[in-house]
């Protein structure tokens, strides 16, 4: 169980977490990068806004 750095909500992660993997928070949807696994540490992944926009 981790905490989302964006919205502060609890986050259940799968077991075989790897460093560098990207997951999204189920509450706020933010893409989070796994920067450590034991214990899991999560950071906001680089923003992809440019890819998405008009």
């Amino acid at each position, binding site marked *: 169980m981790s905490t989302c750095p*964006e*919205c*502060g*909500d609890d986050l259940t992660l799968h077991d075989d977490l790897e460093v560098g993997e990207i997951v*999204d928070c189920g509450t*706020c*949807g*933010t*893409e989070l990068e796994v920067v450590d696994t034991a214990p899991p540490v999560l950071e906001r992944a680089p923003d992809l806004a440019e890819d*998405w926009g008009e």
Partner: protein
Amino acid sequence: MAVTEADGSADAETATASVVGASGFAGGELLRLLAGHPNVEVAQATSREYANKTVGSVHPNLRGLDLRFSEPSDLESVDVLFAAAPHGVAMDHIDAWQDAADTVVDLSADFRLDTEPQYDEWYDGHTAPEYLDDAVYALPEISRDDLAGAELIAGGGCNATATILGLLPLQTAGVLDGADVVVDVKVGSSEGGASGGKASSHAERSGVVRPYAPTGHRHEAEIEQELGLSVSFTAHAVDMVRGASATCHVFPDSPVSKGDLWSAYRETYGDEPFVETVAGGSGVYRYPEPKAVAGTNNAEVGFELDPGNERVVTFSAIDNVMKGSAGQAVHAANLALGFAETAGLQQLGMHPVGSP
């Protein structure tokens, strides 16, 4: 009627219901919802124009129902009467409707405001002001506690509903105290009802971004009443049939952080069955969008921070004939009658979906 259980299970007794204005857009949606409601049986659906025709002749999605329109003057006694007639009809018929039904849920603007002077200011007065005191605003996120047992329920306006839901967490958290608020709304064509006219013909209405209420929209009155602050409101017609989207540009007196905002929204909506916070994230759908909630009673709300301009922007999206009228009405009726809160309202949205 005796509802023995409050959980909406199949054991709960069934309430009988009538829908006045059932040939209209909101009325048709009420019929759709009640057809799938485990605790409600529709007794009557009124239309003057289509009396004696099948409801499926007007609403193609309801061809499976074995129900014909009846005259609104021929009301039977029922447990709950839903009214979806144009503004002004309810105030003229409320006595008769209260006679016919223990609970009246009116979707028009006739009982939304608390006092007669408000109707003098924003509408053309009121012919049954004695009911204003007891009427309960239907939006459960605001009035849940007052709805239990209510006898007269006033459905909120669709633009007002979208706006209020977007701002409510900020108001509760005190962020709106002293704030300036601009509300820029985009709505679909079903908001205008089934009657039509030149401006709403397909050829004229397609593809528009049309300022249809540049200033002075009547929903300002409701928003002010429910949130306690006046807003600068402008509405645009855009090319969709269902949907209302409200973008609120908020300038708070003192700075807020993203964490504050997440807390405020979680606080307000954490336990709400029909409100989802969508704010950023990844993928194609990062903020509230009306098409993601079309056909459902869900509201999506969200926000973004603009530190450079000391601004908070909130977004909210609803289906105007669901959360913005018929769905909200059924939700309120569920609470008034003691049914499970989500009974009849668990439709999921669609993906992909075009311009519903």
